[in-house]
């Protein structure tokens, strides 16, 4: 328990958070339910700084999953542990990206005009396409988790979560935004090539260190898939939105969980 400030002295002003740490904390605040200091900015240039740290948030989430994986594996069989990891990830992210994925399925798969699709994104209720998409997404993720080779399991969890968040940065910086306002708007307004460069260096460094050439191939795969996804969305919407960023995160995560074991088999990777 912190001692209460004496009534004679006013509460000290909150210690200024250094710039680099501010970006990281703002990214944590937006992408996770992890506790962060109160009073962090929710708008303005700090969002641009936060973008550079998205891949780092992926690494933090991956760290939690690895810890849970080790602990749960002591007492539970593999398929049950994998369900536990999916539940934990949904809790840690507050279901943010899954929600975006469901809204995106509802908006993109129904045959509507772009304006109607944007309205569907805003609708917090779920439609058939969202339910069907969510169920098959979780099924593929669960199956992919069960197939991760034991020796590379921690590294692949880290790389998949890290590169999925990098893909959001790439999409935010490189493609137009579809709304006048919205959660993604602030990020888009303050997005810069510098943030993308920093995020890319961080993602490439992590992927390269953890999985070697296979990790870098994963980054290339994520970039290609993001390009395809953005093309698909932009053919149906005036621009990307926060929901489609979330959908992208889930899709890239799933793609990498499926593809990284294949890449590791055909490309040299560091042996742990």
């Amino acid at each position, binding site marked *: 328990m912190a001692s209460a400030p004496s009534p004679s002295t006013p509460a000290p002003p909150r210690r200024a958070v250094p710039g680099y740490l501010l970006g990281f904390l703002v990214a944590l605040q937006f992408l996770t339910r992890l506790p962060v200091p109160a009073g962090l900015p929710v708008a303005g240039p700090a969002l641009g700084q936060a973008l550079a740290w998205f891949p780092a948030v992926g690494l933090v989430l991956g760290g939690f999953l690895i810890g849970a994986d080790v602990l749960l594996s002591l007492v539970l069989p593999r398929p049950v542990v994998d369900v536990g990891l999916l539940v934990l990830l949904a809790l840690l992210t507050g279901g943010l990206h899954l929600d975006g994925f469901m809204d995106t*399925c*509802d908006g993109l*798969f*129904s045959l509507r005009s772009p304006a109607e699709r944007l309205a569907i994104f805003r609708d917090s*209720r*779920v*439609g*058939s*396409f*969202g*339910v*069907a*998409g969510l*169920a*098959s*997404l979780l*099924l*593929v993720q*669960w*199956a*992919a988790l*069960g*197939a991760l080779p034991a020796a590379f399991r921690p590294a692949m969890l880290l790389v998949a979560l890290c590169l999925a968040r990098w893909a959001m940065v790439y999409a935010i910086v490189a493609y137009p935004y579809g709304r006048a306002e919205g959660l993604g708007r602030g990020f888009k307004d303050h997005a810069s090539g510098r943030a993308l460069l920093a995020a890319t260096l961080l993602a490439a460094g992590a992927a390269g260190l953890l999985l070697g050439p296979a990790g870098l191939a994963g980054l290339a795969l994520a970039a290609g898939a993001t390009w395809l996804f953005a093309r698909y969305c932009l053919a149906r919407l005036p621009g990307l939105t926060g929901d489609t960023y979330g959908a992208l995160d889930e899709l890239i995560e799933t793609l990498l969980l*499926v593809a990284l*074991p*294949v890449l590791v*088999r055909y490309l040299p990777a560091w042996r742990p």
Partner: protein
Amino acid sequence: MVGFPRLQGFWFALQFLTRLPTPWPHPATTEELGKALPYFPAVGLLLGLLLVGLDAALRPFLAPPVVDALLVATLLGLSGALHLDGLVDTCDAVCAPATPQARLALLQDSRAHDPGALAACLLLLAKFAALRALPAGARPATLLVAPLLARWAIVAAYWAYPYGRRTPGASLALKAHATTPCAAASTAFTLGVLALALGPGALLVLGGTGLLVHLAAVFLRTRLPGLTGDTYGAIAELVEAGALVFVPLVLYAHG
């Protein structure tokens, strides 16, 4: 004019039932769509061939559970969740405490409610479990015929049971074309493919599918004034999952 004029109906069916690209530049009008009905099983066969090909292509690289999950997702994605959407809406409507006429309006609600969401999850889980349990020997044949049987079931349901709506739309146009020659032609095509893929079990599989369609339709007609586009989708999903479960049994019963 792209492609052979005689194949128009096939392109319309492909455009209506799948998200695959078609050489047909414009969306089919409801009038043109009617011509598509006899070609539904052919589209099912094409989807089955794609599944068999994907299965063969992925299996050297990926773990069996991942391949099975991807096949379930691919089948869903190729159809654009058209039929699963029908299953969700149908379950929502038949579970609602409402009169049959009022349920017709519920079918058009694009939101998913508890019964529909539950049905969609269970159906996908059932398909995944069925694929996991497929014996290697029965795998290609089962993957090939399941989508075919599902689309034949749609034609059979159009032909055999009264349609529930009066409002013009895609389903009413299809219903108008669900004549006995049309049903006979698509049944002959389906039976031919089944005979090639399954051998002596073909008749049993087609008969079992017909029985499943009949039971579903009888149940649906106790809850709705007639069948609608959504219920055809529900029947298709039911038959597809049923085929994945039962076709291997028939194959083994016939040696």
